[in-house]
């Protein structure tokens, strides 16, 4: 039998032998439990709910609150033991309802209320409060304490986002444990002793974690409240759906709660393969942006250089006419579509079909210049998130995970810290992974491939790398098997100041050195993976199929496909700037803010004869458009989205879009009709059926499959790669009411999140059958396989005066979503230029002094910051931060035609 581990330091649950079980009785009933399981979990599965406060299934047990005391018979008779801390054992006899247990529960609850203010009427938690509920269900009913309660000042803000009411705290330690164990940032802790214990921050330091909202989510009382939600609603006012957050491409599952057509809050759902209960603060709080006053609500047309409201008919007519004229005059290839990562899969498919089949252009790019070559993305052998977290060696060659895919960071951190997965970081600057990485190998901008080759062949240690790190990395990689079968690579864009092809080249080098290695793509934008799968990339068609491989099939399906490969984002902007291209439709894309080369983006938009923006906000780019079409955004639409591992999960509509916003697919469909084509689809659901029918990678993922209970966490495309076994489970498992109280309570009000969206995907009834491959369809083209050619540009030799630029991204940026969320907007940092202290000393400047950074493209003045982790000869500027109102500081320096960006640091 498994040895029950009863220290809290080793695992979330005690060590369990695979499949071993024990027999025991709970309240006289025979129960079979997994060996080594905690009693509280075994009882719960057997249908016996044991009250609890401190226990949380995603945190280590600590047995602190004593609410879960039950009677366990042992050699010395029955004793009271905490069910959350004691492992089940063979023959164990447990009683959860005896007088002794009842007395213990009475005592615990009476104690908890001694100093509790009971200000339920003005407490956010009222109505969904585990303390209220458990006092009612298990409490003594009356208190013997007559003394004055202790009082604290309240509420005290511990960050822009979180408010603390110490009087309400019951010292369960969930928040403190989350911050320490899960986020790895112990910015809050218990202070004081005895009846003066409080949770708090260190004086003068805020609870600045990107994950602070999770503590509010799991606090079992109203001690931690979120400033955006505070006093806005009561649980019984709320309605909710289960959906997927699309603020980054990780795809956290969330309960989206609203009241009166406004988002009130998001709570993370426990999706085991993905977010395991947690959300980042951007996903949680920036969802508020849908409520923003500055949403676009009606089409706009530029007249006399002013954007004026227009009707949809007028606007669509104008767009179709101008695009038609330009197509006739300059050819279909003069028209481009940028963006698409903000869309659902269905929307993206509609736009891909509009562009490639109706307009006839292949110059379509969803990644907008800060991703990786699309062929590489679709062809690299893939790993799931779970596989990455169980890898024998996890290589990270990506942007800072905590900044770009925050909850992936939590998963990776847990793999490294809790499960001792060796992490080898290859990065041009240190970041959030560095602290727990087994080896951190610094590479000079553009030199990742060279470094990988040296690492794989046992070459010499590059000058930039510490020998100890180098040998640790080599050792960890070596232990993952000769063919690299245990290696998973998290692959993204560490810096937008180096050409994406250089990173792809490094990936190719890894795939060559370790042929069995697999990749998890760390592309950042919401549904970027879905957009690529749907063909919103040059040279690709839906289903991860190349233009050439899919030509005949899609000619049959669609009527026509573009003659040749089109341009990517940089190519499009160059074409627009030099007049070889004429028009661009930006679908949820803001190249002026997002494209790495700001000068080129500006020239491209300025040089275009006709610019259309389809967006939810008047972004910087949309403000320059000739026609602006308002679209519904997050939580205003249904459909599906695809995360970084290719997991297709359902989006549920919660809100009605404001004003005259249309869903993106409808805009595409109407435009197609006016351009003399026909997308042949009338609804989201029809689009999904068509995707399933034509997209090779999505074969078999029918609506019936997507809606099945076992696919609740989504299905990985292609189906063969999905670890989900489709069963006929009929009802979902009940929620743990204490794990995320806010979801359960709203469900108890009659709003089960799993009821799905306003538009049920399956149409009428459950009798819906799969429509896969009906009729006599030609065989589907095959999806692209690795290897794919990678054309990496040559690296120029650095000149001795210049330093090379590194430019990563920050979570809180100048984007419209953060900007529209007051509490987050306050957290955006100003841009600085970071460099090694010696490089700054050479210049005679210290931290905080202004430095002029000059590249061949332009120059800007930024405050200097010291970063000893940077190698000498490298300067780092975060891409998506601004300084002194100048947006996108780094974008002014970057030249997308150059492999790397060389700059000079000067005194201003």
């Amino acid at each position, binding site marked *: 039998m498994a040895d029950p581990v009863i220290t809290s330091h080793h695992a979330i649950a005690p060590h369990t032998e695979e499949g071993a079980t024990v027999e025991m009785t709970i309240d006289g009933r025979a129960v079979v439990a997994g060996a080594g399981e905690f009693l509280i979990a075994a009882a719960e599965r057997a249908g016996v709910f044991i009250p609890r406060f401190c226990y949380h299934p995603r945190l280590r047990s600590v047995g602190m609150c004593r609410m879960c005391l039950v009677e366990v018979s042992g050699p010395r008779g029955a004793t009271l033991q905490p069910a959350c801390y004691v492992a089940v054992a063979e023959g164990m006899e447990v009683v959860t309802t005896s007088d002794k247990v009842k007395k213990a529960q009475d005592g615990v609850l009476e104690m908890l209320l001694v100093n509790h203010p009971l200000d339920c009427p003005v407490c956010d938690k009222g109505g969904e409060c585990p303390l209220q509920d458990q006092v009612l269900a298990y409490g003594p009913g009356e208190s013997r304490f007559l003394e004055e309660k202790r009082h604290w000042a309240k509420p005290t803000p511990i960050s822009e986002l979180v408010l603390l009411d110490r009087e309400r705290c019951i010292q369960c330690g969930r928040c403190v444990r989350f911050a320490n164990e899960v986020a790895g940032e*112990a*910015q*809050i*802790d*218990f*202070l*004081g*002793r005895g009846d003066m214990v409080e949770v708090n921050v*260190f*004086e003068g330091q805020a609870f600045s974690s990107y994950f602070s909202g999770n503590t509010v989510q799991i606090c079992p009382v109203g001690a931690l409240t979120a400033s955006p939600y505070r006093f806005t609603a009561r649980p019984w006012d709320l309605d909710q759906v289960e959906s997927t957050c699309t603020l980054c491409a990780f795809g956290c599952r969330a309960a989206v709660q609203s009241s009166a057509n406004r988002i009130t809050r998001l709570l993370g759902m426990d999706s085991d393969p993905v977010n395991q209960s947690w959300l980042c603060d951007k996903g949680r709080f920036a969802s508020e942006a849908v409520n923003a006053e500055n949403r676009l609500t009606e089409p706009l047309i530029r007249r006399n250089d002013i954007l004026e409201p227009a009707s949809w008919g007028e606007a669509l007519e104008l767009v179709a006419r101008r695009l038609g004229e330009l197509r006739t005059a300059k050819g279909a290839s003069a028209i481009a579509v940028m963006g698409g990562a903000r869309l659902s899969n269905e929307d993206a498919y509609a736009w891909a079909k509009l562009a490639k089949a109706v307009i006839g252009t292949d110059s379509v790019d969803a990644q907008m210049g800060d991703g990786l070559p699309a062929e590489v993305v679709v062809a690299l052998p893939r790993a799931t998130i779970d596989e990455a977290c169980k890898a024998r060696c996890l290589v990270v060659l990506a942007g800072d995970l905590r900044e770009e895919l925050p909850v992936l960071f939590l998963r990776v951190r847990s793999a490294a810290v809790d499960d001792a997965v060796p992490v080898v970081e290859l990065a041009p600057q240190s970041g959030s992974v560095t602290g727990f990485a087994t080896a951190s190998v610094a590479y000079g901008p553009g030199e990742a491939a060279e470094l990988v080759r040296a690492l794989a062949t046992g070459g010499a240690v590059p000058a930039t790398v510490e020998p100890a790190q180098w040998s640790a990395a080599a050792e960890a990689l070596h232990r993952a098997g000769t063919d690299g079968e245990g290696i998973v690579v998290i692959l993204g864009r560490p810096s937008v100041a180096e050409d994406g092809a250089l990173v792809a080249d490094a990936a190719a080098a890894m795939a060559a050195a370790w042929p069995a290695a697999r990749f998890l793509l760390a592309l950042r934008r919401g549904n970027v993976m879905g957009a690529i799968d749907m063909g919103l990339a040059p040279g690709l068609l839906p289903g991860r199929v190349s233009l050439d491989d899919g030509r005949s099939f899609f000619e049959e399906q669609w009527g026509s496909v573009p003659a040749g490969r089109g341009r990517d984002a940089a190519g499009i902007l160059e074409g627009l700037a030099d007049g070889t291209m004429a028009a661009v439709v930006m679908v949820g894309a803001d190249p002026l803010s997002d494209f790495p080369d700001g000068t080129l983006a500006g020239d491209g938009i300025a040089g275009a004869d006709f610019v259309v923006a389809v967006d939810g906000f008047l972004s910087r780019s949309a403000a320059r458009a000739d026609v602006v079409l308002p679209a519904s955004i997050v939580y205003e639409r249904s459909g599906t989205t695809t995360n970084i591992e290719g997991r297709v999960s359902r989006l549920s509509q919660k809100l009605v879009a404001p004003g005259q916003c249309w869903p993106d697919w409808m805009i595409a469909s109407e435009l197609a009709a006016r351009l003399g084509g026909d997308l042949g689809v009338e609804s989201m659901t029809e689009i999904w059926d068509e995707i399933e029918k034509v997209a090779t990678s999505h074969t078999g993922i029918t609506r019936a499959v997507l809606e099945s209970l076992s696919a609740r966490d989504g299905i990985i495309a292609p189906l063969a790669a999905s670890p989900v076994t489709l069963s006929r489970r009929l009802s979902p498992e009940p929620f743990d009411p204490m794990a995320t109280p806010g979801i359960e309570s709203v469900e108890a009000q009659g709003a089960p999140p799993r009821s799905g969206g306003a538009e049920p995907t399956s149409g009428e009834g459950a009798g819906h059958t799969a429509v896969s491959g009906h009729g006599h369809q030609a065989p589907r083209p095959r999806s692209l396989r690795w290897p794919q050619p990678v054309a990496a540009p040559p690296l120029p030799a650095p000149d001795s005066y210049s330093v090379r630029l590194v430019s990563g991204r920050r979570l809180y940026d100048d984007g419209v979503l953060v900007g529209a969320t007051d509490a987050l907007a306050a957290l955006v940092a100003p841009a600085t230029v970071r460099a090694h202290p010696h490089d700054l000393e050479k210049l005679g400047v210290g931290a905080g002094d202004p430095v002029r950074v000059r590249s061949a493209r332009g120059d800007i003045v930024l405050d200097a910051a010291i970063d000893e982790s940077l190698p000498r000869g490298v300067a780092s500027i975060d891409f998506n931060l601004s300084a002194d109102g100048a947006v996108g500081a780094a974008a002014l320096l970057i030249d997308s035609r150059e492999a790397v960006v060389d700059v000079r640091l000067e005194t201003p």
Partner: protein
Amino acid sequence: MTQSHLAPEVMARARDIVALYPHPRSALIPLCHLAQEQDGWLRPEAMAEIAELVGITPAEVLGTASFYDMLHTEEVGTYVVTLCTNIACMLRGAYELLHHAEESLGIRTGSTTADGVFTLEDAECLADCGRAPCLQVNHRFFGDVSPEGFDKIVDDLRAGRLADEVPHHGTLVRTERDGGLRVEAETITAERRATAAAMAERAATAAAASEAKANG
């Protein structure tokens, strides 16, 4: 490099202490005492530096420090006067003494005189019941304290007459080995032997003297 809050020699001692433990975190409480020795209390700047030295967050340092009575996370006077009010002392007039102390220092229990010299605290049993009522000044014992005795202690402290017995608050030990923790093990063994020999010699001399006395 910005100037550290802990003085260079304190910093050096801190590093030596950290090196003693397999986990740097274990040095947390010794370092808190060290910082308190420098400043008389645990300043936030010191806690932030300790956090860095042992690799935890400042919030965790504060969390630990605020748990312990002997670590003060709020400013205290040069002399922290701690009166026992537990049962033995209470029966021998501890509350009357505490009342007197408040009157004579002009402050309430738990606060510090305006000149920053005295902080008055009450405490549970200080384990000196045989000399009840008793008090501690900076953890140095004073027993059988009468109200007049209390005033005398205060006067003596103010006048510096007790400087040899009571160091400023935060100082746990006043004698330190030259070289601190860096001294070689052999040196320590040799010193111990020498001390033991000296003690044995003193004992022998004393024994001889008392024998001579008895005989004489």
